[in-house]
């Protein structure tokens, strides 16, 4: 699984769960249908492709959840986190039902498809639903581990997978920050696939780098322990800049802290190419992140 596309790793893990647990159901809206053919062969009644109908994808998943199943629904991020938002909010959040919603291609992974296929606001939208867990793995192995840890916990969970992956997997757990590097000057939190570039961008700087794969639940105690009494916190996040602020600020609200959020500017992108090229344009590559981190030291 090393370096495998996160979407494939997720599909393999979901298929394993479907085989192992008769209460797992997979609901799709055409996207990635080819990745679930083995699952479908195993039990076609629990692998439902609803067609290009994302509202019904979520509604059908809710129907499965009402009958005690653990649904896993999947599409591209804009088409699972944004288009059927009200179904996520009401059919799951309000009704108190659990499922896993896996989005692929958050922000501008599929940059060349244009803004119709971008979703840097997906996580902000998901955080607006009380009780929604939000997970952001940085590798396929992590996506599989987080899925296994949460799929049956009765809560709605949004897991955002991406084309960008970190160089190596971390030992991750839901709601736990991992300290990847220790330093004295400041603390940098890297979410999901931003870790490898954040480590590169802070090479030679005396900073602590912490790795987060959960936005909600967030590791409040873990962050408070890492940052000390007079913290300067820098957050590197792959979605709209400041999306994680309520979680991060809330964790250290008892302290007087300075914050720098490095993420996607709040503007539509009218350009194409690859996600790497857009990252560079927006200052989310190694050089751009290093520049923002260094400048954040200035008074």
């Amino acid at each position, binding site marked *: 699984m090393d370096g495998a596309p996160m979407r494939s790793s997720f599909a393999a893990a979901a298929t394993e769960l479907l085989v192992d647990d008769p209460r797992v159901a997979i609901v799709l809206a055409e996207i990635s249908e080819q990745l679930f053919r083995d699952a479908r062969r195993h039990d076609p*009644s629990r692998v439902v492709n*609803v067609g290009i109908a994302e509202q*019904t994808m979520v509604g059908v998943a809710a*129907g*499965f959840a009402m*009958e005690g199943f653990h649904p896993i629904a999947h599409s591209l991020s804009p088409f699972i986190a944004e288009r059927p938002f009200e*179904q996520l909010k*009401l059919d799951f959040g309000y*009704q108190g039902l659990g499922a896993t919603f896996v989005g692929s291609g958050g922000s501008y992974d599929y940059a060349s498809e244009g803004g119709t296929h971008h979703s840097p606001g997906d996580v902000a939208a998901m955080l607006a639903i009380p009780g929604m867990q939000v997970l952001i793995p940085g590798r396929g192995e992590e996506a599989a581990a987080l899925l296994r840890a949460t799929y049956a916990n009765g809560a709605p969970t949004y897991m955002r997978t991406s084309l960008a992956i970190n160089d190596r997997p971390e030992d991750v757990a839901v709601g736990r920050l991992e300290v990847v590097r220790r330093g004295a000057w400041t603390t940098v939190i890297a979410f999901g696939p931003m870790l490898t570039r954040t480590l590169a961008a802070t090479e030679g700087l005396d900073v602590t780098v912490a790795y987060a794969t959960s936005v909600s639940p967030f590791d409040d105690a873990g962050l408070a322990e890492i940052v000390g009494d007079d913290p300067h916190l820098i957050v590197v996040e792959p979605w709209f800049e400041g999306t994680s602020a309520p979680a991060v600020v809330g964790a250290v609200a008892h302290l007087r802290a300075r914050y720098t959020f490095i993420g996607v500017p709040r503007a539509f992108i009218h350009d194409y190419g690859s996600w790497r090229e857009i990252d560079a344009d927006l200052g989310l590559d190694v050089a751009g992140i290093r520049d923002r981190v260094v400048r954040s030291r200035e008074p």
Partner: protein
Amino acid sequence: MDTTTDLLARVRSLMGRATGDEKHEESSTSTIDVLWVLYDRVLHVDPSDPKAEGRDRFILSKGHGPVALYAILAAKGYFPESWLDGFMEHGGRLGAHPDRLLVPGIEASTGSLGHGASMAVGVAQALRTKGLSAPRVVVLCGDAELNEGSNWEAIALAPHLHLDNLTLVVLDNHSSSLAVESWRARLGSFGWAVREVDGHDHDALERAFVPASDRPLAVVADVPEGEW
């Protein structure tokens, strides 16, 4: 033991107890006969065990005008009739749109239009997956609710999944601003068995609810225009 007629009369009085003048709740008179026939003659449900695995499932998709449903559930013993006094009141359990977490017998929390049909398809498929062939799923949508596109995603999907355990009730009180030429033609073209019936005729409704053998069933219950 009440006779059916006595019980229905009590349902009507309970509806008045819930609504009163100041809390006039509209779309209830249009649905009461359909709901009554479902709960009195069609659905296999047990008020003493509202989560029984083998029960039939009813989803009031439109969520609007739930007083008739509340009154029937109370009359059948799902919850105390005294709850109706707190309809729409702070601290009460019965809101203007039903909440499955507060009310025994309410399968889905609805009110935002266009959610119930998709959930009903999921429930019907899940029942089949569990190997439960007896329980049926009935979902009620209003004719104006069917303006919502999400319903038509579900209406297209149900025949594709061969869900003959699913029944859609179209409660047509002609409230849609968009004219519908023919429910039979429209739903039939999606692959549904369609029966059109007087929405206040109990015997005709009961006959119409006999499941279709090989496809999902749509029962179009027509009530007079302007009746809510």
